[in-house]
């Protein structure tokens, strides 16, 4: 059917005869005349890739690949540790289908991008509110990069170069911070809670950075850590799980200077770890040190309200090597999902999600603690919806046996001897997470499975 006269592909409209006409207008004989700058010996080296496939074939193949994955929508899952399976209201998907949002670019022409800009302003407003902070930027790549950039920003603001990270934080946060700081004349160091609270903070510390709830789900004493940081002339940097702020006091309330978080729990599907959006909030007086895009309100020549990218002189396209960050393409659309999520949930919905997660997680923790051979560990104190349990057999084996029972278990973790004040020796455990998506029935299934596995249930 397809002849030479046809367009080469459904995505490429011009036909052979149109191309011929255009080449004539350009004034060349053939296409090759356009690429004479390419070194001849390497020109036109063919791509050894599969042939074009029709939409039906591609869709069929991709459906088959998707079906190979074990999907949290179809089996109980207890994985958290930085990515969370929360409810996503139908409004999010509905708005996300608007081509005007999906297929537009960064709003460099604000008059033609008020949709993206105003919804981004909603995002900034909601994030700042949830964090109890004065300002939020328009989003970072993801939570860990937001945290890493927060450390670097703290160094800029404080003009000091030691970024101290509390040792109860997720190792991923350390690693990304280290990768971001590697050549930037700042040091990344771990510090224990005890040292901070004892005032044992070096006087060139740029910040005390911590995660709360921490890696094992426990709420840190944000006020004490923040006060200790400030006492040492350092900034307080907090990384958090925004859903927890539906019930727990906000970083802003404790005087935290920069607060970051992973935006994924607020309306973004798990999608194997990305694309997510990093949340980044701070105090008004630090705004000129913020990394990333910022949307501001202004007026047009007729005095009407409108929105625009602002404080762009911090950014790479203007400031180049002296920019506050190299970030350019960011995560606007994921930020839109968060904005629609927050608008839909409202204050009561967000609180309800937090409380449901809290109650269900405690229900599970209590049930597991009652099983012989299993116990909740990780330092006491309050936890939100994650906690670690010590297992009677190796956690990776627990995970495997749960998978065989159709359950996605928690994350095998190592708990250091002194983690969060735990006095026992180093142990291996499993970090379990519960959200409003876990039904009581699914939780009970897990408990029964663990009980069975603990009793030597079939491998």
């Amino acid at each position: 059917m397809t002849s030479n006269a046809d367009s080469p592909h459904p995505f490429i409209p011009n036909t052979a005869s149109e191309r011929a006409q255009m080449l004539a207008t350009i004034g060349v004989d053939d296409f090759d005349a356009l690429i004479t700058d390419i070194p001849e010996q390497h020109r036109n080296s063919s791509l050894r890739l599969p042939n074009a496939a029709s939409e039906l074939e591609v869709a069929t193949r991709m459906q088959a690949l998707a079906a190979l994955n074990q999907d949290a929508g179809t089996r109980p899952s207890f994985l958290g540790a930085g990515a969370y399976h929360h409810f996503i209201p139908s409004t999010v998907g509905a708005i996300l289908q608007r081509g005007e949002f999906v297929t537009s670019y960064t709003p460099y022409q604000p008059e033609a991008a008020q949709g993206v800009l105003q919804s981004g302003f909603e995002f900034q407003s909601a994030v700042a509110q949830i964090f109890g902070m004065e300002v939020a930027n328009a989003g970072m790549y993801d939570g860990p990069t937001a945290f890493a950039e927060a450390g670097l920003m703290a160094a800029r603001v404080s003009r000091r170069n030691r970024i101290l990270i509390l040792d109860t934080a997720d190792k991923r946060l350390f690693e990304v911070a280290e990768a971001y700081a590697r050549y930037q004349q700042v040091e990344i160091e771990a510090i224990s809670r005890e040292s901070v609270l004892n005032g044992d903070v070096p006087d060139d510390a740029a910040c005390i950075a911590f995660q709360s709830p921490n890696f094992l789900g426990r709420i840190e004493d944000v006020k004490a850590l923040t006060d200790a940081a400030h006492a040492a002339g350092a900034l307080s940097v907090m990384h958090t799980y925004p859903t927890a702020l539906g019930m727990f006091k906000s970083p802003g309330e404790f005087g935290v200077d920069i607060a970051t978080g992973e935006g994924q729990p607020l309306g973004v599907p798990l999608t194997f770890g990305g694309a997510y959006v990093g949340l980044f909030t701070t105090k008004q007086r630090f705004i000129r040190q913020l990394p990333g895009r910022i949307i501001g309100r202004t007026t047009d020549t007729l005095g009407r309200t409108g929105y625009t990218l602002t404080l762009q002189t911090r950014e790479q396209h203007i400031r180049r090597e002296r920019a506050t960050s190299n970030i350019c393409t960011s995560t606007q659309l994921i930020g839109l999902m968060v904005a629609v999520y927050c608008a839909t949930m409202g204050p009561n919905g967000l609180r309800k999600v937090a409380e449901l997660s809290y109650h269900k997680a405690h229900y599970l923790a209590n049930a597991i603690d009652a099983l012989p051979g299993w116990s909740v560990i990780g330092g006491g104190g309050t936890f939100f919806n994650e906690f670690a349990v010590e297992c009677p057999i190796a956690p990776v084996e627990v995970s495997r046996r749960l998978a065989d029972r159709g359950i996605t278990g928690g994350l095998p973790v190592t708990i250091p001897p002194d983690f969060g004040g735990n006095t026992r020796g180093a142990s291996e455990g499993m970090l379990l997470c519960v959200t409003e998506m876990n039904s009581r029935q699914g939780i009970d299934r897990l408990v029964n499975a663990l009980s069975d596995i603990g009793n030597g249930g079939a491998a």
Partner: protein
Amino acid sequence: MSDGVVPNASVADMHDRRLLMDRSVSGRRAIEMPAADVPLAEMPSDDLLRDADDLQLPEVSQLDVIRYFTLLSRLNFSIDTNFYPLGSCTMKYNPKLNDQVASLGGFANIHPLQTDESVQGALEVMFELQQWLGEATALPGVGLAPLAGAQGEYAGLLIARAALEMRGESHRKVALIPDSAHGTNPASAAMAGLDVVTVKTDEFGNVDVEDLRAKADENACVFMLTIPSTLGLFEPNIIEINNIIHDAGGLVYADGANLNALLGLVKLGDLGVDICHSNLHKTFSTPHGGGGPGAGPVMVTEELASFLPEPIVVKSDTTRHSGSTTRHSGESRNPEGPGQSDIPTPSPSQGEIKRGSYHLTRPDNSIGKINGFHGSFSILVRAYTYMQSLGGDGLRAVSENALINANYIQARLRDRFDLAVDRLCMHETVLSGKRQADRGVPALSIAKRLLDYGIHAPTMYFPLIVPEALMVEPTETESKETLDRFVAVMQAIDDEIDSDPDSVNHAPHTLPNTRLDEATAARRPVLRWSSNGD
């Protein structure tokens, strides 16, 4: 702001622009959550708990949410609604199939820390995408982790530094960057602790080879070449240039943001490039989303593959990535731990690998983790879907037609507008509005005026070395007819500059807002809703 009873004179007043918080009514709600199906636990102590009224989020109905954001969407230009020839950004058709595939439950609902064996479909997507990007660039080491072009650059520079350090050349701290480069190049170089040394562009738009030769000394770490350049030109001396860098002991980094000009026409690795990134959201047509998410995989030579950022995907019966460690069934895997633990994290997966044949792994000399998990998976799926739809020949047709379209516009407009460089271009053409500026209308106004015709503006004032630059990238997905209309509109605006310059200088006239006061926005920043209205 409209009081709501003025009939709409234009789109501008099509709806009221109040923020959601200004529409909020205490007690309204857009969703109901279920009641708890478990006994309630004891609540934490009060000093940890947030006050009920501390959380000021909108209280609106579900219809309010839908109507508000739907109407907002309509204030925006987009590919789905407008021709969008924004240079360097590659605003082309984003196939709907890709979005549909990415939303399949088996892709959208998988957790990044699931065991490898439970996500074999996802890993196959990533593995093949690695292979295909390696083939397209002749740089076989592919890391999919970077979340955008700029992060790909940063990852690439970390690789360069690590590789040179391993050679014992950690003193090399200079990044040579042409003056036409995109801002992320110097910004990434600075993040990587490099000193930026600018290399001149000659009158033909090429790298000034003598300037480069003079600056490429024993401190040279990397030369960052955008290819084709931001002038839309292919560097004819690229092999000589790469030799200069290599002879000086440095590495060549290619900014592959414009890879859509090269598919099937030439492979960067064949030209001596050591490292490059590709913006999947440009060349491989994943949607830009109003400014992301994107994905910026980094591609390197075989030699540099062991430095790639974590993780990469390997197939258990192959060891394609020379530098990567492949673990097999039965080998012990370390669990994750909190921060202070010094156990390396070889793979983000827990559990033993047994049934599956694809695995996530950490290359031996990896520069480490540059973000939380495995990259923008939802974007990777889209790019992979796109590449399947096009196939090898189709991808070549992409580049061919991108070039023809850009050259066609250039040929048709060159009598009215100066060209940054008067020669055939690749996928985009940079016009200069010098003549128009002399007649009193700057490039900015031409850009704004285009919006009135329903055409998105080209990239303005970039590259910085071109006065009054208007960088036009039509892409291959637009038809000759659309290009002809664009040409006609540009000519009409050029005519208006004589007949009614004021109207051009005050454009746009037909959008939701007239020109916005960006200066005040920056001087007195209002960055969020507040109850007192400022």
